[in-house]
Each structure stands twice: as C-alpha cells, then as structure tokens.
C-alpha cells in the first residue's frame, strides 16, 4: 500500500530528514567566527605576597602573543582574587564557559584531570616544532603530569627556603652556614642557640620554628608518596628523616615556639618560600617585614641519604572544551616557554622561571638588580641547582586526604618520643589501605 505521490515521496522525505540531521550536526559543531582566546588568571601574585601591578606581566605577554598572531584577541576576567579563583574556575567549567587557557590550582589539578576538564598536552607539544619539553626543569614539569600524561605546563615556581636570623647567630658567635650545609649543621646550631638569654630561668631563644617532618623527609630524598600515589612511609630514608626530626625537636627542650617568636627575633630559623624572600628582600620591605633583626635566606639543609628541595609550581592548562586548542597551546607556550615572559618572571615576579635557559643565562647584574647588594647566597647557578633538585608535592587524586592521614600518624609517632620501625610499617599499611579505598570509590 503505497502512499499517494509516487515513488519520489519517500526519497524526498529521506533527503529532507537527512538535511535536517546534517543541519543539526553543523549547528552543534560550527566554530565561532571570531578568534578570541580566553584566559583564566588571578589578580596579582599566586603566592600570597603583595604585587604592585597585578596584570602588568600578563598584559605584556598578551601583547607579544597578539603581535605574533594577528586577528587573535586574548581576553581575561579581571579582579579575581586567588581565594575566589578556585570557585570561579569551577563555575566557568560547570557553566560550559571554561577559559581556553587557565591557571590550575594545585589542589584541583587531580580532580580536573579526573573529570576530563584538561586537555592532554603531549600531542600538541609534539606537533610544535619550535617547542621542547627539555627546556623545562624536569621537577617543574612533573607538577603538570598525571600518570605519565602531561596535562599542564609550569609557568613559574617557588622553592621552599629557610630564613635565618643573622642578628641572632652573630650574637651567639655562630657563623652563617654555607649554602650546602647539612642536617648536622642545622642540628648543632639549633642546639647551641636554644637557651635562656635574660637569666629568668625560662628558655626564651629557640633554634627553629615551622620546620616539619616533611621538610626533613624531602631534604633526605625521601618521598612520602610517589607520583602515582603509592605510599613510601616506611622507607629507610623516611625512617632516617623521622629520627633526625625527633632529634631536632629535642633541641627545643619541650618548648613549642610560636610564629611571633621568629618575628620578635627569638628564633634562629624559619622556613619561608622564595616568593616571600623575593618580595621582602629589596630595601624598603626588608626593614618593614622584620624590623628588629637582620635576616637572610638559605636553602634547606641537606639530609644524609639524599637531597631534594620542596618546590611549589604554578601550572596552566588548556580546557578540554576549548575549540581552538592549537591557538590555546600557542598562548600557553608564550606563558611557559616564551623567553621574554619567563625572564619577566625572574626579574619582576615573586617567583622563579621554569625555563632553564633564563636562569642559566642570567648575569650577576641581573641578580644584583633582583636582590640588591646584600648577599651572594643566590647566584643564578645556585637557584638553578635548587630547581634541578626541586620536588613538587605530588598531585594525584586523593592526595590531601592521604597526606592528612600520613601527617596525623607521623605526628602521633613523633609525640611518643620514638620512631619504632613497626610504627612506620603500621602507618604505611594504614595509608595504603586508605589509598585502596580511595581507588575503589
């Protein structure tokens, strides 16, 4: 029973339907006509230190990029503070308006990889002839990797340093340690300076504040967690670090110094990061930050089994939803790989560049411009060494929870006054169990 209209009716309907189908497909996949690249950034410094012109370096990088890519406009939303950035970014992602290129908060990195919000970069990097991953510090690069896949490029990084109260050491007749100093040096000084200075029977001068078991572990080459999340809490280097930390704590004679004690000049050492050093080192800040004493920054002391330097890395990635990934990668490359942009970071940002050549080619004059005339502690090659030995915190999914459990367990062990081998094994077991449960979720 054929409908009226002959044999062509079916064909017509078929083609009409097919056309409609194609139209819908086309509408869905049609790229926007204007070439606008959006970027997700924060106002000012990522590292929680004041910075005068929040977008100066970014604007310069954008100007260079736009000059090299005519017809492309780079837009970013102004005025997002670091504290609001995580939520802002999540909202953009959820609303389907993710910027093409965006800074990835450390704590969200694993999550965004898991929900496929970040584009794997290796194919884009491989396609670019003028780009090489070799140019980056491997330590910084590893911060953007997850299980062997690169999801974000490092933009800048900040190593952890130990601030030293020079006035205090001079008063105690102790020489400023050399930059390759060790745990033993650290321990000796801490033991010597811990005493009652005004004779009231109360200890009022301490060796250190804020140095943690994790600092000890990392500087001994130990890794509490591998990049894939495997716990190594009972390794011998870990055990050694825990023992050293216990010994170091013994120098405090049971006292617990507070943060103000360092500010008031009563503590010899306190860890800070490079951003703080870089911000407060130049002249006016220098006086203002710690008014009662002279201070300097040192690399963290080396452990006996190995050495690594705790490193914080700021990464940026490309949204999986971006419709112009090649262009986005070009801009990401400008930020992470552009020599001028990277040099701008060294010279003007409270952070260090991730491109090796920038530090390697920096001159003494550059450093003098950076840190003033004060010290010779951080010549470019020393910063280079610190970054080469840098170790960013791992960023696997569930890191925070696992680290919290490890920290609690380790603190409990340390509070008991001994670090028994089986205690570490038990902790290792607990954390592994947690990881297994996380994996099952």
């Amino acid at each position, binding site marked *: *029973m*054929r*409908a009226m209209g002959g044999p062509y*009716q*079916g064909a017509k*309907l*078929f083609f009409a*339907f*097919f056309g*409609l*189908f194609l139209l*819908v497909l086309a509408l*869905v996949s049609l790229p926007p006509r204007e070439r606008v690249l959006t970027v997700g950034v924060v106002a000012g410094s990522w590292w929680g230190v004041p910075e005068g012109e929040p977008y100066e370096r970014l604007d310069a990088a954008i100007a260079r990029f736009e000059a090299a890519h005519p017809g492309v406009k780079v837009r970013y939303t102004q005025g997002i503070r670091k504290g609001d950035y*995580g*939520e802002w*970014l*999540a*909202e953009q*992602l*959820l*609303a*389907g*308006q993710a910027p093409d290129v965006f800074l990835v908060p450390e704590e*969200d990195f694993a*999550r*965004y990889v*898991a*929900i*496929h*919000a970040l584009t794997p970069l290796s194919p884009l990097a491989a396609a670019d002839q003028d780009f090489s991953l070799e140019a980056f510090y491997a330590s910084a690069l590893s911060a953007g990797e997850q299980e062997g896949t690169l999801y974000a490029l490092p933009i800048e990084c900040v190593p952890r340093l130990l601030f030293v109260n020079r006035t205090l050491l001079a008063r105690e007749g102790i020489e400023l340690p050399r930059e390759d100093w060790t745990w033993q040096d650290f321990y000796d000084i801490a033991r010597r300076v811990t005493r009652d200075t005004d004779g009231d029977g109360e200890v009022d001068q301490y060796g250190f504040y804020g140095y943690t078991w994790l600092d000890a572990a990392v500087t001994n080459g130990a890794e509490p967690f591998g990049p894939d999340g495997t716990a190594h809490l009972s390794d011998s280097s870990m055990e050694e670090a825990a023992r050293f930390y216990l010994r170091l704590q013994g120098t405090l004679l049971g006292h617990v110094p507070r943060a103000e004690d360092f500010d008031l000049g009563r503590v010899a050492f306190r860890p800070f990061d490079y951003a703080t050093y870089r911000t407060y080192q130049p002249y006016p800040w220098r006086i203002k930050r710690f008014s009662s004493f002279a201070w300097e920054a040192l690399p963290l002391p080396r452990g006996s089994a190995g050495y690594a330097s705790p490193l914080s890395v700021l990464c940026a990635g490309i949204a*999986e*939803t971006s419709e112009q990934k090649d262009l986005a990668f070009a801009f990401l490359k400008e930020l992470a790989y552009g020599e001028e942009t990277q040099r701008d970071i060294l010279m003007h940002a409270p952070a260090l560049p991730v491109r090796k050549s920038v530090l390697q080619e920096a001159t003494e004059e550059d450093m003098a411009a950076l840190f003033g005339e004060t010290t010779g502690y951080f010549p470019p090659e020393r910063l280079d060494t610190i970054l080469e030995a840098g170790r960013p915190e791992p960023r696997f999914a569930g890191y925070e929870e696992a680290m919290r459990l490890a920290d609690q367990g380790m603190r409990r062990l340390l509070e008991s006054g001994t670090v028994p081998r089986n205690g570490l094994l038990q902790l290792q077991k607990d954390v592994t169990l947690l990881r297994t449960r996380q994996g099952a979720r």
Partner: protein
Amino acid sequence: MRSVAVAREADARSLFRMYQLLALYNTIVVLLLGGFLAITQQKILAAGEARAFLAHLPNLPMAPAAGFSATVAALLLLLGAGALYRSDRFQGAARHFYLAVELLCCALLIRSLDFSYDGVILLLVADIVHRFEGRRQRVLLAGAMLVLYAVSVYSLAAFQNLVVPFDAYAAYYAPNVRLLFTVLKNGASALNIVLFMLYVIMLVQKKHEEEERLRALGAELAEANVRLRAYAIEAECMAETRERNRLAREIHDTLGHALTGILAGIDACLVTIDAAPDFARQQLLKIRETAAHGIKDVRRSVKKLRPDDLERLPFRAALAHMVEEYAEATGMEARLTILHYPGNLRAEEEDVLYRVVQEGMTNANRHGGAKHVSITLSAERGNIYLLLSDDGSGCDTVKAGFGLRHMEERLKLVHGSLRYWSDRGFTLEAVIPERSEGKPAEELTEQVAGKEEKR
C-alpha cells in the same frame, strides 16, 4: 472477511495508541529530568558551590543550557527517526538509516541526561520489535531486552568514571527533597517499564488474536465446504427425484397410452374378427406395432427407474433376491458372495451396483449362454469391488453395446470405473471409491433431508 480487516485495524490502532502513550510519557520524563538537571546546575552556579559540586563528579557535565538543548534536540530527532522508521513507506537502506539515527540519538539522549534515565531504550526496542514479525521478532525482542539489561548494568559499571550520577545533582537539595527526587526518578523508570510491558503484552495479544481470527476463518471455510458438498448431493438427489417423477409420468403416459390403444384395438378386433378377418388381422398388426412401441417405450423408461426390490428391501437383501429370482427364471446357476460388505453406501451407489449385477447377469445369459455365474462384492483399501464372472462363451473382442456403455456411464457418475475381459468366460469388474469421510456428509444429507421434509 471484512470484519477481520476491521478488527485488525482496530488492534493496530490501539497498539499505536499505546506506543504514543509510551512516547509521550518518555518525552515528559526526559524533559522533566533534563530540566531538573539544568536547573539544579544553574542553582549550584548561582549559589557559588560549583567547586564543591565538581569535587564529587567523575566527569565535567555539559553546561545547563547546552545540555538541555542537546537533550531536546536528541529527543526530537529520536522521535522523528522513530516515526519514519515505523512508517510503511520506507524499505531497505532508508529504513536502516533511520534506525541508525534513532540508535545514535538514543545514545546521545542518554548521554546528555548523564545516564540518569535510560528508559528511551524501551522506546527504541518498541520500534524495532514493531518492525519485525514472526520468529525473528521474538528473537529480536529477547536480544533487545538483553541489550537493555546489559546497558543498564554496564552503564553503571563501565561509565561510572564518565557519568555524573543523578545523586550528585540530588545531593544539592535538602535530604527530604533529595529523597523525593530520587523516588520520583526511580518511579519514573519503573512506570516506564510498566508501560513498555503493557505495550509488549498488547503486541503479543494482537498477534494472538490475529492467529485466532485466522483459525476461526479456517474453520468457517471448512464448514462452508461441507455445506457446499451437502448442497451438491442434495441437488443431485433432487434432480434424480425430478427425473424419477418425469419417468413415472412418461411411463404412465406411454404405457397407459399403449395399453389404452391395445385395449381399444382388441375391442375392435373382437367386433370385426368374424365379419372381416382380414381387417382384424391388419388391426392386430397395428396393435402389435403399438405394443412393440409401448414395450420399447417402457424399456427405455424402466431403465431410468429404480427397481422395485431396491425400494422395498435393504440393498443386500435386494441384491440377493434379484440374483436368486433371475437364476430361477433363467435356469442359470448364480452364486453371490459378499466378502466384505461396504459400509455407508449411498443410494445412488447401491443403484449402480444393482444395475451392474442385473445387466451383467442378463449379458451372461443372453450373450454368453453361461451356465454358471459368480458374483463377488467386497470393500478393500478404500474401494468397493464388484466382480462378475461367468463360464459362458465370452468373446474375443468385446464390442461395447448399449449395456456395457450404460454400465460405464452409471459407474462414472459415482466416480467408479469398469473393466471387462474374456478368459474362461467373461469377467466384469466394477470399482467404486469408498467414501471414507462420508459420515458427516451422510449426516448433513439427513439434516438436509429433514429440512426438506419439514418444508
């Protein structure tokens, strides 16, 4: 016939209405669910809880507006492709294309709803099943159900890392509201399954009823056949009765006429025989001629008539009586053997057999000059056999005379056949097929006869 077509159409219409209900229900659920997901996402955005929300997701969901648009577009395409696929107008590649589009849209739709609702698969299954008939349909239905089951299990297991669970959206709301949404969602799926089951039941019922209707139609046809056969027999009987009446009239007319003529002629002869013997002789010649003519007429008519014996006696007795009487009259020795008496002989068959025996004996006596004749009747393997053999002279070449030809014609009327040959005398063999299914016809004939009587 027409009522069957109407019933079938009514069935198809009610099935289609069920399908429409299923489609409408799915449309409403999909739109509500899509709306719920989009609105919830919008609310999460407005409340500044995007980061906490994303922390619980295995995958980045689509933007609210885009997601809802994708849902609606996939739904419309799905319904459109489904309607075209169901339409009778398309065959072959075009239909496969529509099915492919439908499958694709179904997948897209489920994906756009983050696997929260996979009930549209049932709509797809309904479409596929609708298109296939017979055993393939059953296999297909089973296959489709298996796939559905696999999808519902698999979507939970395999896509767990890709799909934003419904609970993540529901978690945004207060616990009691969350419970309500979850219950509503699960209820919607359950109701969908109920509707689908109804559809399948109706489909199966429709098939069943169609079969039933076909069976009823077949029975009706068989009954009509039986009636037709009975009618044919009745018509035959009536024709025979009519013929018999005509013959009776004819005999009355011819025989009566002849006898009346003969009587009148004899009377005239009696008067004139002494006065004018020549005239009387002439008269007698005329009378003889009339008588001869009358006999000729009678013979002709009597042949059409059923023998008197057969009217009075059962066939078997009539046959025996006739054989005996004839043997006595002619002095020929005749023996009748009945090996296996055939059941349910029809009247006309009895007539034919009776006549064959009568004619055969007459032939044996008249043409063969036989002293002995043996007659055998039997029913075997669905045939009734009648054998007549005599010890007469027989003949080398049998020339079928009126008698034999007449026998043949009679036998043909009851689908029988005649063979004859000469070896030690002359042998006749008449065969009539036995009516094995004769019973109902017999009954029907009786019924018909009964009706006839009432009239």
